């Protein structure tokens, strides 16, 4: 049975069902006992003080607290109410939690989920609240998912909580307004499985999070012109469904990556590197990245748009790889 839920409502349902199913599951974060945060609304009333913890503004310590509680038998969900709040906790994330299992020689599991709310830019969130910092966590080897639909939000959140390793769940602010059918039952998905959101044969577009919607819209529009765009949604960024990505690129021979985070050493770089390594002989055109510029997001919404991946830029890139399949000659570009 499915009902329509909002994206955040779907995350919330996963929290409720996980805590219902397993007494070891605790959630901690800032202001999560109050009624302001939609993803945790009612959680405290339902599960009480012992399992729903309002934390002080001590991101480093409460991330470490989760690590210790997990080693002591808990299954912990940690909320970061803004994506950039992983930075004060960075040592506890990348140099402690991510490394502990190996450093311990496998003595214990570390079942911790980091729920990272409000990731991404939009609407004047300005310099410090607009980041989409998953590349940092990917580079650190932290399992990471970024669901693009309400149904996936629920299924991936359930899977993250069930996983016996640290997993980061990114909830893009660009999807807060969306809703869609979500199964009532608690059905976790398997990590590392991509989804084809639009089937096509001319060019593969890798799109992440809220950009999936935009990529699918463009694919629909270009289909009318006879241009066949495949939209590949990784769903899970680490583990990554490399086999399915390779299958898609080997089929289309062209790749555009559409990703809303900084360009240099970003997720788009990784995808490009992977495909340049594994699908080289299938490629008919240069790989294009449509990302953020490597620029701090300014406040003014007009200039902000100049720096973000937009459907217009995606379309230009798609047309460019279609046109650019024949070598052109001219000078190098710095």
């Amino acid at each position, binding site marked *: 049975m499915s009902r329509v839920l909002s994206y955040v409502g779907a995350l919330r349902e996963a929290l409720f069902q996980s805590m219902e199913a397993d007494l070891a599951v605790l959630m901690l974060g800032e*202001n999560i*006992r109050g009624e302001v945060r939609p993803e945790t609304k009612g959680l405290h009333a339902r599960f009480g003080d012992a399992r729903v913890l309002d934390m002080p*503004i001590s991101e480093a310590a409460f991330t470490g607290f989760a690590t210790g509680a997990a080693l002591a038998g808990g299954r912990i969900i940690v909320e970061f109410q803004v994506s950039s709040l992983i930075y004060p906790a960075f040592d506890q994330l990348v140099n402690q939690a991510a490394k502990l299992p190996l450093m311990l020689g496998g003595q214990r599991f570390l079942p911790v989920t980091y729920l990272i709310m409000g990731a991404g830019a939009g609407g004047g969130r300005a310099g*410090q609240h607009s980041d989409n910092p998953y590349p940092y966590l990917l580079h650190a080897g932290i399992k990471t998912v970024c669901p693009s639909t309400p149904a996936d939000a629920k299924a991936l959140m359930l899977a993250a909580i069930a996983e016996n390793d640290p997993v980061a769940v990114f909830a893009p602010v660009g999807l807060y307004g969306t809703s869609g059918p979500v199964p009532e039952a608690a059905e976790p998905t398997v990590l590392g499985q991509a989804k084809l959101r639009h089937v096509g044969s001319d060019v593969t577009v890798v799109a992440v999070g809220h950009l999936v919607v935009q990529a699918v819209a463009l694919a629909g529009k270009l289909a009318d012109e006879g241009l066949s765009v495949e939209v590949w949604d990784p769903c899970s960024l680490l583990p990554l469904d490399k086999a399915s990505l390779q299958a898609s690129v080997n089929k289309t021979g062209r790749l555009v990556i559409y990703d809303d985070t900084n360009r240099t050493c970003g997720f788009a770089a990784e995808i490009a590197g992977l495909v340049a390594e594994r699908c080289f002989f299938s490629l008919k055109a240069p790989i294009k990245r449509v990302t953020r*510029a490597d620029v701090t997001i300014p406040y003014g919404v007009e200039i902000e748009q100049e720096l973000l*991946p937009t459907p217009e830029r995606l379309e230009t890139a798609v047309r460019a790889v279609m046109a650019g399949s024949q070598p052109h000659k001219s000078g190098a570009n710095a």
Partner: protein
Amino acid sequence: MSAPNFTGPVSDPDIALYRRMRLLRRFEETAADLARAGEIVSAVHEYTGQEAVAVGVCSTLGPDDVITSTHRGHGHILAKGGDPARMLAELLGRESGYNKGRGGSMHIADLDLGIFGANGIVGAGAPMACGAAYMFLMRGEPNVAVPFFGDGAVNQGVLLESFNLASMMTLPVVFICENNGYAVTTPIGAVMKGEIHVRAAGFGLESVVVDGMNVRAVRDAAMRAVERARGGGGPSFLECDTRRYSIHNVSAGSTVTDERPEQEQATARARDPIERLAGELIAEGRWTLEARAVVDREVETEIDGGLGFARNSRRPEAASAYDFMYARTYPGLPAPAVDLPSVDLSGAES
């Protein structure tokens, strides 16, 4: 009792305090209205209720002194002498804004006025204040640095580390904690035991509590701390007991309601710092209702003028979006959102 950065039409320094508080109040009510209406696109963290803190503290500072501010920063900036017109322009994302429309509510700064900027990250400004204070000390300048922060910040590592930095180096820093009782919906008593000023004293900071709804009390306490710091006596900590009137922040379309006990809010409003000072000045025979009305009208005019200025200012050009990322750019730096020319330009030749 000098008020170095409060110049203008009023000569009685206490009336200057009133005027400035009134300016903060009306600025913030205006900003909140603009946010609710969506003309300011981002959320605004309203400072209403807390005016006595910013105004009392900044009345003891000059333009060579430095402040660092918070997400709830408009009040600090106005109190330090910030221009409401350029602030409103910033909030509307205009080129004439303090940060050329790049910063917005949480990053407004005026380096020339010693305003190192609001900050979107709780506690993050304090170490910068320490660094500035160190430069004053090293160069033998009598300036002080004043980081503002909330009760919620006293659990943030970087702030606690900064207490130690200031203490160990005997820096001319006056830490101002605005204890308004809450961090978003979480009461301070739920996330710490004991008293904030006691914690600060444990770091070797000279530490006092003051009624943050009484501007003259704040001013007097700040003056003692600032003079001490200027004289080489080292850092202090001022815990200001205050209340914000509004919910955590306002933005267009928000349906969030205030979860705080109604009685608590009523009590806070009964302590209103602006009404209190006006009442006292009139009772002391130093002021009249009529004179107050004149000041209030001047403030209205200043805000209206500022808003007009802001609305008439132009927005940044699209082509300028990459500006200011670096003092010096290089070929290919910063990298653009899309690298299209090369699709056609990259050639097989070397």
